[in-house]
C-alpha cells in the first residue's frame, strides 16, 4: 500500500507551503501510468490528514488519460494498459501523458 506513504508525502508537501493555515481543498492529478490508485489515495487521505490543518479538506483528483504517440505511424492513441503498443503493432512509442503524480494546487481559508 504505497499510497499511504505517498499520501503522507502529500500532506507534508502541503504543510510546507501553507504553514498553519487551514486547508480547505487539495487538488491532485494522477495518471493511469503513475502506479498510484486514486481510490487508495482518497482512502488514505482522511486518515493521514486527521489532526493536521488539512483535516476535512476536500480532495479532488483529476484522473488524467494515458496517451502515447507512435514513432512509426505518427498516430496518437489512448493507452489502455501498461503495454506500450500502438494499434499499428509498433512498440516504438512515446508516452505523452499518464505518468502524472502531482499536487496541482491547494485552497486555504
Amino acid at each position, binding site marked *: 500500500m504505497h499510497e*499511504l506513504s505517498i499520501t503522507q508525502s502529500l500532506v507534508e508537501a502541503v504543510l510546507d507551503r501553507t*504553514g498553519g493555515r487551514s486547508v480547505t*481543498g487539495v487538488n491532485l492529478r494522477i495518471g493511469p501510468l503513475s502506479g498510484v490508485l486514486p481510490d487508495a489515495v482518497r482512502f488514505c487521505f482522511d486518515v493521514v490528514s486527521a489532526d493536521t490543518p488539512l483535516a476535512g479538506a476536500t480532495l479532488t483528483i483529476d484522473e488524467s488519460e494515458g496517451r502515447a504517440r507512435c514513432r512509426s505511424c505518427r498516430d496518437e492513441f489512448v493507452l489502455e494498459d501498461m503495454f506500450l503498443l500502438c494499434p499499428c503493432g509498433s512498440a516504438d512509442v512515446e508516452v505523452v501523458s499518464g505518468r502524472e503524480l502531482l499536487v496541482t494546487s491547494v485552497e486555504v481559508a
Partner: protein
Amino acid sequence: MCATCGCGDDAGTRISDLDGTVHEIVHDTAHAAAAPHEHPHPHDHEHDHGHQHDHEHDHGHAHDHGHGHQHPQSPGTADPGHSPAADGRTLISLEENLLAKNDLLASRNRGWLEGRGVQAFNVMSSPGAGKTTLLVRTIRELAGELEIGVIEGDQETSLDADRIRSTGRPVIQINTGAGCHLDAGMLQRALGALDPVPGSTLFIENVGNLVCPALFDLGESARVVVISVTEGDDKPQKYPHMFLAADLVIINKADLLPYVEFDVERCVRQARLLNPGVDVLTLSATTGDGMDGWLEWIRKNPHLATAAAGSAPRSGGLRV
C-alpha cells in the same frame, strides 16, 4: 506505545546491525505530520561500548514559514500563485510531484554513492523468490574479488541479515514495521550506519513485494528484479510497474523448471514488451547453474568501471 497517536516503536522504521545495536528508530511521516508531542526515551543499557545512539525523532515540524505575503489586493493584480477565491479562500498553485521529496533524497544518495565509487543494486521481488539465497551465493562466489556489503529490508526480524552475516560481510537490517517498501530516506540512514568502503559493491534487498518498491527510487545504480519459476510466467503482465523499472530480470529456481509450468520464453517476451532494453538471466541460486552470467553482469556493470577508474585502489576496496 505513544499515547497520543497510538504508534509504537514496533511500528516505526528500525535500522540495526547484528550486535543488537539499534542505530535509529524513526517514526513514520504520518506521525511527523500529526500534532507535535513529546516521547520519553528511557535507555537502560550500559554505554561502555563504542557506538553512537542516534535516536532521531523526526517529528514536531515547527514550520513557521513567515513569508510575509502582505499583498494589498487591488483588483486585477492578483498574485498568480495566490489567487483569492470569491468566498475569501485562496488557491495556491503547487504543481509539485508527490514523490519529489523521495526523489530529492534519492539523488543525494546517488551522489553520495558515486562519490565513493560504490555500485549499488536494488534487488526486488515478491516474498520467497530467492533474493537472500542469491545474495549469499553471490557473496561467496565473489569472495576475494569484490568487497560486498548488504542492506536488508524486511517488515520484521533480522533473519535475512543473519544469513548474510554468516558470510562474514557487513550488513545492516532495516525493519520497516508496517511499511511495504524501502524509501530513499531509509536508505540514507542505512548508508550512514553501514558506511560502505569506497569502491565496494552494495546490494540493497528490498522488502519482498512486487508492487510498492517499484515507485521509490533509492539512488541505486541499477534495479534487479528476481522472479522464481514457481510464481508463474505471467508475472510481468500482472506487475508491469516492477518490470518497467527493472534493469535486469533474473528468473530464479531454474532447477525446478521440470516440475512446474513456466514458459521462460513467454516470460521474457512479456517483460521485453514492457521494457524492450531489459537484460534477462535464468539461473538457480540453489544449484549454482547460470550464476556465471549474473556474476559477469555485476563485474561488467558500468558503475563498477566508474568506481575502478574514479577511486584510488585501497586495501578493503576493489580488488581485481
